[in-house]
């Protein structure tokens, strides 16, 4: 006695393929999920004790990054400004603004402000700001258009593929050292070439390769060795 008609063979075969596709699809979905801003937290504006606006301070007032992030050129850690740095100006201006009360309170009581970290790497990753700056990686290469951020957010995924992209193809991103802190820096083009050491570069690749040589950026093999970031 035959319970299933002959055509069910096709259904069975089809379902096999479907299972493979479903598993594959699930894996793909998982991998894609991992890259979503939900997981990476890119673009999310976190609650902060003070609604500090980089846009206002950088674009509006023209304050250099290093005025607050003092150790960025010497240390792995860029540094978060102490309350004293805020008070330098805010003892003179906006002295009564209500939303600056946490700053004044911190200065009065000696208790630190507690910011929520925006750009966060896992604990097994060791990133060093100073060497990136030294090699001509601009702030906004990783941090995005900070000068346009009324509230700070993480611009890039900061996942390993993001780091590796630059470590493998650094010529695509490097800029002259004096332009590192320039948030409005544009990569060279035919119309607006970039001049380094008297030589004019009209495309990023030739500039990047020249800078790689000049700044002695180590080989791709060197800077993609695991111990560059993991130890």
């Amino acid at each position, binding site marked *: 006695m035959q319970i299933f008609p002959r055509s069910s063979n096709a259904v069975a075969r089809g379902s096999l393929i479907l299972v493979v596709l479903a598993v594959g699809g699930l*894996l793909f979905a*998982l991998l894609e*999920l*991992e890259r979503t801003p*939900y*997981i990476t*937290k890119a673009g999310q504006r*976190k609650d902060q004790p003070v609604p500090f606006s980089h846009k206002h301070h950088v674009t509006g007032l023209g304050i250099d990054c290093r005025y607050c992030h003092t*150790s960025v050129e*010497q*240390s*792995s*850690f860029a*540094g*978060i*400004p*102490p*309350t*004293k740095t805020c008070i330098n100006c805010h003892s003179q201006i906006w002295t009564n603004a209500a939303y600056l009360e946490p700053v004044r309170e*911190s*200065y009065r009581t*000696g*208790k*630190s*402000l*507690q*910011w*929520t*970290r925006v750009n*966060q790497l*896992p*604990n*097994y990753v*060791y990133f*060093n700001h*100073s*060497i990136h700056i*030294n*090699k001509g990686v601009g702030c906004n290469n990783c941090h995005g258009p900070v000068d346009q951020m009324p509230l700070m957010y993480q611009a890039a995924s900061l996942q390993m593929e993001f780091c590796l992209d630059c470590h493998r193809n650094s010529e695509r991103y490097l800029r002259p050292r004096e332009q590192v802190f320039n948030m409005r820096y544009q990569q060279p083009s035919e119309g607006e070439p970039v001049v380094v050491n008297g030589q004019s570069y009209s495309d990023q690749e030739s500039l990047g390769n020249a800078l790689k040589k000049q700044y*002695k950026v*180590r*080989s791709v*093999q*060197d800077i993609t*060795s*695991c*111990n*560059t970031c*993991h*130890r």
Partner: protein
Amino acid sequence: MMNIEDQDAKPVKDKANAFPDVCPTKRNQLDLATVKEQIEDTTGPQYWRSLEELAGSEEFQEMMHREFPKGASEWLDTFSRRGFLKTMGASLALAGLTGCTRMPDTEIVPYVKQPENLIPGRPKFYATAFSLGGYASPVLVESHMFRPTKIEGNPEHPASMGGTDVYAQASILDLYDPDRAQNITYLGDVRSWNALLSALHGPMGAAKAMAGGGVRILTQAVTSPTLAGQIKDYIQANPMAKWHVYEPINRDNVMEGAKLAFGEPMETRYDLSKADVIVSLDADFLYAGFPGSTRYTRDFAARRNPDANMNRLYVIESTPSSTGMKADHRIPMRAAEIEGVARSLASNGTTEGSANSGSAQAAIAAIAKDLQEHKGSSVVIAGDHQSAAVHALAHSLNESLGNVGKTVFYTDPVDANPVNRIESLTALVQDMQGGKVDMLLILGGNPAYDAPANLNFDSVLKSNTVALKLYLGSHRNETAELCQWHIPEAHYLESWSDARAYDGTVSIIQPLIEPLYGGRTAHEVMSVISGQSGITGRDIVQQYWQKQHTGGDFDAFWRKSLHDGWVEGTAYQSKGGGGRKVAVPSASQSAQSAQNGNFEINFRRDPAIYDGRFANNGWLQELPKPLTKLTWDNPIMIGPAMAERLKLNFKDVAELEFNGKKVKGAIWIQAGHPDQSITVFLGYGRTRAGRIGTGTGFDVYPMRTSQSPWFANGAQLRGTGEIYQLASTQGFQTMETHDGNSRPLVLERSLEEYKKEPNFAQEEEPKKHLTLYPGFDYSKETYSWGMAIDLNACVGCNNCIVACQSENNVAVVGKEQTLKGRHMHWLRVDAYYSGPRDNPKGFFQPVPCMQCENAPCELVCPVQATVHSSEGLNDMVYNRCVGTRYCSNNCPYKVRRFNFLLFQDWETPQFKLMRNPDVTIRSRGVMEKCTYCVQRISERRIDAEREDTIIKEGDLQTACQQSCPANAIVFGNLNDPNSQVNKWKAQPRNYSMLADLNTRPRTTYLAEVRNPNPELQETKAELTTSVENG
């Protein structure tokens, strides 16, 4: 006195049950006769790690077959296999999702006002000093955002030269010990500092009215000029008060010996850099705890170069020590017989007394001759536990050999109050019993635990004869329990103080962190007692030095002293050259030879936890002791011949009886231990040490009396038939092959042989093309890292292990896990023996990851969690590792360590402060191993690149290299032709371990060369037999 038997028998028995034999293999009787045969027939391995290996015991054979010891990789807990699979299935199903974990938000907390010169993310170093037994070890302390994380030696200080010792290295863990006392207590109740002040008000006034009558101050050894000044000032103002000093590991005999010889206490200092012949009379001068050992090790090791003028070391010793194992000639002897040797040496080797057999006599004559041939360039060092007479004889020998002023120097005692410790404590106890003490102030130490048993200090302290008892101590320990007031003592990294190094140089001790638990220093307590409360520790120390300082700018002087780590011009001047009249003590009653069944007992400080003060330090508890490689326990140590006669085996529980006290402990048979003699180690069996130290090992202080603090005759030893598990790492990670074709891993020749055949260590390396894998040209890189370890210089002090543990956040696993072979040390120091079991030569070989160019581990990793960097480092990527352990299986050097469980303490907040922020904290299920301190390489490389240069020689040191007092480890750039590591590797003694495997290790060794006395060569075999029968 409590009945010791009852007290001690129980914990031992209980613990034997608590740690059942995890690998219940067939336990065959260790056949010591086989051991003897093996050596005589030379059928056994030439270099052996333990007597068990030599006997070819089944247990050991099985251990060698296995990658991890039995029990390490099995699931032996009560979890059933089915339960395990269920859990695993569930976690596997969820494993795919773990990649999607969102990192939790974390806070970032800036300063309110950032200190000047602080660059967040870059460590700073401060000079201070660690002291042990009063003697200061100058150190530099690494501080990350004002959290001390690592201790280094002070390279500019003559007492350190950059090296440290194990105790200094491990002291950082004590700072963060969560078991430290955290409150001032009165009868166990928490009190405030002000409550203490007001409680003291009345008694202090009464004391003052009596000119200090009834006030007794008990301190540990004090070399601090400030504290000594404070106490002396107090006694000057209150002349009836008295200052007593007690240290269990004291130098009474040294001072008594000096008094015997010169009529006054004097400190002896040696200059081993000028000594061609060194004779140690039971002195373990190359191990931590011997004052000046760090410097002595440096000088000694520098003279072990066979291509220069190599020194010769004779060690006549009782308990085998790492110093003895480094000796060119070692004569094991009962401690009491050593005085006879000293007398023979003093009378030029002529016979005097017949305690020693003919051939030992011949050896001693040869030593005497060698000394005579090196007048002015030899040195005789007597051990701290040898009698005053031996010290006096050593002084007389050094004087007659013309060594004084050349290799031996005499100075004022470094100790501020060099009274006889035991007499001092005895006097105190008598006063306490006589009701003469109203107020007892105990500043540090733990006398209720470690005082000589016959003084009954603990019961006297417990009784109500003393009205007011104050104790300043770091832990709520045995002594704190018996005092009304307990004031938590600040750790030295939290304190202002000062201390003298072995040469008298004063180091100012400056704090690196505010007291974590509100601890106070002895200075602060003394100032309260003197009626000057409210003055800070800094002011006390500064004011003292202000008074001492003559001449200009005090501020500049103060800043320079703090910066350098010592006060210039404070080293004690040597008291003239030779020509001093030395009184030689007349012969005391000749050493009775121990009768059968009536043995000599030796009390020794423990190589790991000293007198017990480090009992709660996990790093030191788990540190494999230099010779036995024991962790977490103290054994009853006996020699092989005696074990054979008493039919005792490793781990057998024996009952030791001495002075009517009985104690039970596990037997350890130590090759080279003198016959008819027993060694027990102090410091274990603590009842109130903390969660790490309480209940480890057994306490032998109850047997130690003021008459015989170091050795005595009349001990008895009986087997009990019980078994107690001892966690020794000696058999783990063996590199032997199990086919019996053992190849020597340490290589050794005598100086004569070396001169004839300098290339003895060279082995033909397999051809480069003998691998299927494509090679990589490292020579084109800027850096190519390599390491060389000089076995000749290494003295087995274990310092590198603790330095590595501290630098690389290596976890402590505990005794049970160590028994399973799961200890995590990235660097181990293997001890090998060769020669007769009763007097073998010893060898030490530090084994870190070899960083093989053809790394076998990399080929078998399924997830590429271990791969090579272009600079030749064998990187370990923790976040990729899935824990297959294939790499460890394939590693011929057995240097990989696996986190079988969550060994790191992720919870205790104190430990979060302690860890090196530059090294990942590994979690469960992850393999780890030595990285050549890659975090240091990266940091220095970045620094150099920022300055547009490359890392220069000397800028970069690994943690083990930096802390090594012997300079036995060199690390550097192989692509720099002038680097020290290349110079070492170019030496003929350089060899790779297991070179025939074509792993091309980056870490190589310089083979050992010994410098035996040619005259003694032929008598040697004879000598050992006679000592054995002696």
